[in-house]
């Protein structure tokens, strides 16, 4: 048996287990929109922990993370910095959103927002921005899966086939079991990712350089610029403090606003589950340390991969590791890709139906679920198409989408905490903030101090939101009052 056969068998086993877990997961969920999108609001701590952990750390963490540490050094530390900062506010926001979800039956982020600020335009705008931000994101996950499989099987399984099989399995379990499958497979994949990352992060430096300390001592002697913040840019020049600092800020502000994460507030069994998920989140975040160590291990590696993102598979294949280790690594990388990809496909389709199509045409519960499944397939197909005919622009699109997603933060904070805020102010703020973000994205050289375009967007967004709020009047202050009382205390809105 050739080496790549054994690796292929390990990957196939991993995919079978994932599929089995995914298909089994949905058997207890009810046949309803709440069951398909919000898991009947019954997820416990274990699943919530891994949903947040594994979903947030996508293929980017296994390929991009080491790639950044390898080529840009300490610039990658911004990823370690923002996660906890972004999650901490959820200790208060998450339970509020969940209480509103239980009381009013919300399953998406836009439903919550429109529940407070009634506007069809707002709902459709959020749905459109969500789907637009998701397509490049899903595409990158698919490519990540395909690249890894192609690399470790020496090209015997090409990208199109590897990505197709991995995401065919994702489609099967998302179509059958909805969010229950996302939750349970993420738990399995999350455990897998954690074990593989820590094992490789400690094993590789020892095998290649005799130890973690020895490796960093050598890097400090040969490439010291890689070990202090803000590190380097993609082209190898020194990155600016403005760029590094605002990358942390915009990511911390935006991360919990990604619809596939925000919506999970509606899946939790109770408020305590959400709070505990936030409390435990930093323990998952530390998994980036071995990920960075793996990337730094590549700095001293005698050969260079064709692209920095391939550093991990590249090193693994050239270090004469046992086929078992290579296969397990590959399964770990697939876990990272699929655990994010499934959540994106599921959330994207749910949002498109609930907040987009559903605003124009009344659909019953069964039609909604049918349409969601159709859109899961549709979005998967579009992303698969882009994954095969890739251009660099996708990465660029994804980076810019963070600036847009961060513009969801002021409206949602206002919805949950600020009684005075009015509907026109929220719409004006969102439109102005997004427009400014896009303007500076396309005219990057105009940005002062290399600040992230999303931060510049927020600098316009907040004054507009506050200013228009005080220029307008809420026609129905009683309903805002009732909404906030429900957020605070839960219970029946009537």
């Amino acid at each position, binding site marked *: 048996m050739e080496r790549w056969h054994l690796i292929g068998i390990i990957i196939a086993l991993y995919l079978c287990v994932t599929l089995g877990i995914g298909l089994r997961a949905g058997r207890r969920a009810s046949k309803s929109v709440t069951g398909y999108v919000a898991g009947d609001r019954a997820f416990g701590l274990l699943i919530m922990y891994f949903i947040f952990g594994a979903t947030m750390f996508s293929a980017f963490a296994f390929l991009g993370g080491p790639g950044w540490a390898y080529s840009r050094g*300490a610039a990658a530390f911004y990823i370690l910095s923002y996660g906890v900062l972004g999650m*901490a506010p959820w*200790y208060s926001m998450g339970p509020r959103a969940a209480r509103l979800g239980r009381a009013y039956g919300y399953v998406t982020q836009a439903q919550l927002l429109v529940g407070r600020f009634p506007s069809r335009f707002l709902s459709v705008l959020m749905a459109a921005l969500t789907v637009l931000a998701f397509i490049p994101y899903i595409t990158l996950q698919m490519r990540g899966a395909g690249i890894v499989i192609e690399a470790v099987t020496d090209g015997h399984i090409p990208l199109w086939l590897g990505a197709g099989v991995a995401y065919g399995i994702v489609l099967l379990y998302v179509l059958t079991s909805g969010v229950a499958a996302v939750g349970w497979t993420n738990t399995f994949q999350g455990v897998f990712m954690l074990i593989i990352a820590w094992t490789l992060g400690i094993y590789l430096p020892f095998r290649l350089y005799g130890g973690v300390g020895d490796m960093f001592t050598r890097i400090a002697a040969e490439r010291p610029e890689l070990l202090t913040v803000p590190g380097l840019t993609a082209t190898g020049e020194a990155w600016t403090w403005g760029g590094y600092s605002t990358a942390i800020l915009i990511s911390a502000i935006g991360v919990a606003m990604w619809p596939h994460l925000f919506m999970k507030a509606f899946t939790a069994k109770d408020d305590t589950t959400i709070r505990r998920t936030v409390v*435990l989140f930093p323990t998952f975040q530390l998994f980036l*340390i071995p990920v960075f160590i793996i990337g730094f291990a590549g700095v001293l590696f005698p050969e260079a991969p064709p692209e920095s993102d391939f550093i991990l598979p590249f090193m693994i294949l050239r270090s004469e590791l046992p086929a078992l280790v290579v296969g397990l690594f590959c399964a770990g990388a697939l876990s990272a890709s699929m655990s994010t990809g499934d959540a994106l496909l599921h959330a994207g389709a749910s949002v498109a139906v609930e907040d987009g199509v559903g605003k124009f045409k009344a659909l019953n519960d069964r039609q909604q679920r049918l349409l969601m499944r159709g859109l899961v397939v549709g979005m998967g197909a579009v992303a698969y198409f882009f994954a095969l005919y890739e251009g660099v622009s996708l990465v660029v699109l994804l980076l810019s989408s963070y600036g847009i997603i961060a513009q969801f933060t002021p409206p949602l904070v206002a919805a949950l905490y600020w009684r005075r805020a009015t509907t026109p102010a929220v719409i004006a703020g969102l439109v102005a903030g997004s427009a400014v973000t896009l303007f500076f994205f396309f005219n990057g050289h105009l940005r002062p101090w290399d600040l992230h375009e999303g931060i510049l967007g927020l600098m316009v967004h907040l004054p507009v939101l506050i200013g228009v709020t005080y220029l307008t009047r809420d026609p129905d202050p009683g309903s805002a009052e009732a909404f906030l009382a429900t957020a605070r205390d839960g219970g029946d809105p009537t």
Partner: protein
Amino acid sequence: MNIRWVRGGAIVFFLLFIIAVTWPGMTPGNRIFPLILGLPFSMVWIAAWVVLSFLILVAVDSAEGRARRVSASGKSEDPLTAPGPDAPTNGEGE
């Protein structure tokens, strides 16, 4: 300890966290040596803030839990519908 002090303290901590990992607060931690557990000091500096937030969040959670139990027993209502103490009317959240 009054629950408002706990919340205020947590907000202050996370603001300090933001300052400590961006410019200019990162400067004191931004060096390679001494290596700690073999890792560069800059990486350990950030990781230490992550570990510290875990401890802070555990402390906040236990204080909030106590406050919830006190308010639930004090008003002798069903604990599920009793006002959650984590929801100050004027709070911005942490």
